[in-house]
């Protein structure tokens, strides 16, 4: 049976599909080896701080599809991130030269009596409301802990309303409690897209390359156009029709293969759109390898080599200068696994030491199952070994780690985590635009950014002098892995 079973509305979690884990303490090389040999096991934590759930990841992708609507079948708290995605939406529109508008989101606002007597009528009503209010081309229904535990049959409702409204109505099984790995939320969102939105190809468009990413500025087109390719950035800020035609493209690449693994593999499995199986294009070596893999896939080896050569030359001098200025500085990276590997390699390529990395989870393999795509392997091979923690956003472990390593700069990709570096007085910044460091020019942008951070650390200094950490001295003396139990 194929990886993607569009007969079912739900899919296995990452733990089940990929054997993913959320806790590990050791060397990158060990982690890579364990993953490869299939002996990787999770070590549950007794004490934990809140993390994130699949619901956020699913909604963040789907709510940014410009002519779709999302109905969150849940109590109101699950709408806590509506306002964030709304600002992301408005900001992205302004950046793309369009008029800012609110995101199309609705909550069924489940309450006590709904919990007792069921809330399916409310769901029906909400879907109709969404249809009336936004005239969307598709509606996504995201589930919640409450809707799942009370056993709401949201699939039945969705199918019935799809009949009635004559537009795709897709359920998204992103109940928070199902998976410790919140990126499962991406997978279920993509599954809904593959099931209900993507159509079989009408005519193939080999020059088009799907780029699975978030909402960063489009740095792909400039590169691709030079070799006669078109970048098709999805899912955020695309519309339903563009997504429906993902099946027609010549290849699929990813800004982060943790993000896109399911969609990329799915497109290859269902519609044989080849997935470019290489780590994402960060750092010289990474970008070279990635471009070459793309070149092979779309048969543009020659053009690609010329592109690589000219870019290397273009950035050469400033890169040298940056390396000189950054030499001897130590960085620490905390991010979602593959993107984290990418950022670590960028730091190494800028001539910095990397004291280690903290990644929110680890997938021993990707859905494509191809070791060539293993970004951790790539990191170790190209840039050497480093200490690695796998930790689903457990601030207390991270801060414990940072206090020992005392890096000169701390680079984060996830809201809410950057502040802990700052409270320790470490120049820290969040990678807001995930494309900021991408490819060759990104290397320079990123280097300049790091220099800014270290050249004026006053904010961090004052913060550390005045901010109190909510942790006991006892804890700060323990080892970071203290609360990890042995694998069950």
């Amino acid at each position, binding site marked *: 049976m194929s990886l993607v079973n569009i007969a079912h509305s739900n899919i296995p979690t990452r733990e089940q599909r990929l054997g993913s884990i959320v806790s590990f303490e050791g060397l990158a090389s060990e982690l890579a080896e364990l993953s490869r040999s299939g002996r990787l096991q999770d070590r549950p934590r*007794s*004490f*934990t*701080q*809140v*993390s*994130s*759930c699949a619901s*956020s990841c699913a909604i963040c992708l789907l709510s940014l599809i410009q002519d779709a609507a999302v109905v969150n079948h*849940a*109590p*109101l*708290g*699950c*709408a*806590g*991130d509506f*306002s*964030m995605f*709304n*600002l992301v939406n*408005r900001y992205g529109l302004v950046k793309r030269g369009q*008029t800012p508008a*609110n995101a199309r989101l*609705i*909550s069924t*606002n489940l*309450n*006590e009596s*709904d*919990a007792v007597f069921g809330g399916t009528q*409310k769901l029906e*009503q909400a879907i109709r*409301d969404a249809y009336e*209010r936004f005239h969307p081309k598709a509606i996504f229904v995201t589930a919640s*802990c*409450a809707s799942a*535990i*009370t056993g709401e049959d949201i699939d039945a409702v969705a199918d019935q309303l799809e009949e009635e409204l004559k537009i795709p109505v897709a359920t998204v099984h992103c*109940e*928070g*409690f*199902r*998976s*410790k790995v*919140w990126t499962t939320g991406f997978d279920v969102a993509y599954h809904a897209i593959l099931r209900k939105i993507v159509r079989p190809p009408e005519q193939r468009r080999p020059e088009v390359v799907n780029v699975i990413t978030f909402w960063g500025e489009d740095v792909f087109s400039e590169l691709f156009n030079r070799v006669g390719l078109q970048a098709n950035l999805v899912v955020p800020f695309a519309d339903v029709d563009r997504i429906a035609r993902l099946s027609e493209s010549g290849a699929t690449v990813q800004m982060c293969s943790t993000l896109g693994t399911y969609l990329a593999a799915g497109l290859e499995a269902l519609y044989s759109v080849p997935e470019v199986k290489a780590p994402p294009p960060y750092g010289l070596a990474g970008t070279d390898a990635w471009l070459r893999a793309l070149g092979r896939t779309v048969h543009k080896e020659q053009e690609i080599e010329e592109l690589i050569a000219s870019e290397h030359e273009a950035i050469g001098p400033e890169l040298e200068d940056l390396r000189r200025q950054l030499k001897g500085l130590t960085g620490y990276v905390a991010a979602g696994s593959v993107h984290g590997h990418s950022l670590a390699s960028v730091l190494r390529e800028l001539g910095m030491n990397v004291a280690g990395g903290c990644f929110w989870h680890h997938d021993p393999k990707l859905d494509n199952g191809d070791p060539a795509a293993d970004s951790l392997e790539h990191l170790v091979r190209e840039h050497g070994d480093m200490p690695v923690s796998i930790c*689903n*956003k457990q601030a*207390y472990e991270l801060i414990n780690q940072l206090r020992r390593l005392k890096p000169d700069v701390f680079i984060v990709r996830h*809201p*809410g*985590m950057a*502040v802990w570096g700052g409270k320790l007085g470490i120049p820290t910044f969040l990678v807001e635009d995930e494309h900021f460091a991408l490819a060759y020019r990104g290397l320079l942008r990123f280097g300049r950014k790091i220099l800014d951070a270290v050249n004026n650390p006053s904010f961090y200094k004052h913060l550390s002098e005045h901010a*109190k*950490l*909510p*942790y*006991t001295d*006892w804890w700060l003396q323990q080892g970071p892995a203290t*609360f990890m139990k042995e694998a069950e």
Partner: protein
Amino acid sequence: MSTILQHPRHLCALGGQQSVVAIPRAIPILHAGPGCGFKLHTGLGSYNGFQGGCYSGGAALVGTNVGEKEIVFGGEQRLREVIDGALKVMDGDLYVVLSGCATDLVGDDIENVVTQYRRQGAPIVYAATGGFRGTNLHGHETIVNAIVDQLLTPQEKISGLVNVWSTVPYYDPFWAGNLTAIQDLLAGLGLRTNLLFGPDSDGIDSWRRVPAAELNLVVSSWTGLSTAKLLNERYGTPWLHWPTLPIGGEETSRFLRAVTEAAHVDGQATQAFLDRQERRYHYYFERAADFFLEFRWDLPSHYVTVTDAFYGTGISRLLSGEFGLLPLRHFVTDQPPLEQHEAIQCQFAALSSELNAPLTFTADGDQIAAELREHPDSAPLILGSAWERDIAAELSACHLSIASPMMDRLVASGSYFGYNGALRLIEDIYSMILSAVQ
């Protein structure tokens, strides 16, 4: 009464976690799904004036992140693990366990678990805040009453001590500045405020002092009333309920006079204090009068409030009562208990019968927009949440965000409370308009 909501302005009961975060050195412990805590931080703490995580909020929130296993086999054991860890790892004076949908629905006996810890002397309480139980305003009252109920013991009365129960922390982006403002004003009357939340509170000590107060001051439309009643039963403390935001020269003075009476303080000293404050306030009022009288560009003559009842009533008294603006429509978004609706109606109407505008109780952005479209050519001033930016643009109306969620402003110690609060609000409203017309 919970309808389907587009553009929610409040969240679920578990939002009570933010009220715990607002207590210095208090640690919330969430017994809930993995994403709940962070979503609520995002909606109430972050993308609402970017107030931030502070000491024990944001990514520091402790939680059990219950998964399939706990749902099937129950999560009490898991909760014990996390409480054990929290007492070791988290440096706090007060621990508040909050349950989420998942754990409330599967029926973990959390109360029992927590009580055991309390018996062993841990300063820990429990609140049932499963999201489906109500709004975060309800959640706020739940955690406050939980602390009062499970932690406090009778105390000697301290003369002149006043407990202040006002706007809901984080949900009201200006809560912190407001509390400071109340403290300063009451100090002017020679009263000592016992603040339970925010930078000027002594945290657990302030809470332990609660029974020692001579007066509970509920400066809020309706939240906190149940607390005041509870404290009255327990410790016989009288309470004063002031349901509208005291803002501007007249309302603030009325408020302070009422407090003076309720707290039996020297009326003459109060009068002297009020005179000084009013004189200063009116110096700026006069300075700006040129502008209000002459501002040649279609300064909106009508305004709309899309806020909770507390702000809506207070602000309409300022704009209509002192600045001569006319109300077009009021929307009350904090879903007050039905029995409060009539009182709120009256508070809006109190000004004068000509200054009455239709009042709608709703938190649904779509309904609000629809009703505003009934006045196509009014181009009013819209005071609401950042959600109203779109409908404002559609009606080419002026808009200022003053209510949750506030994604278009950063709020630090800002406040719209009292005399200075009014000056601040007027500056903000008209700066926004001036900027928009050029």
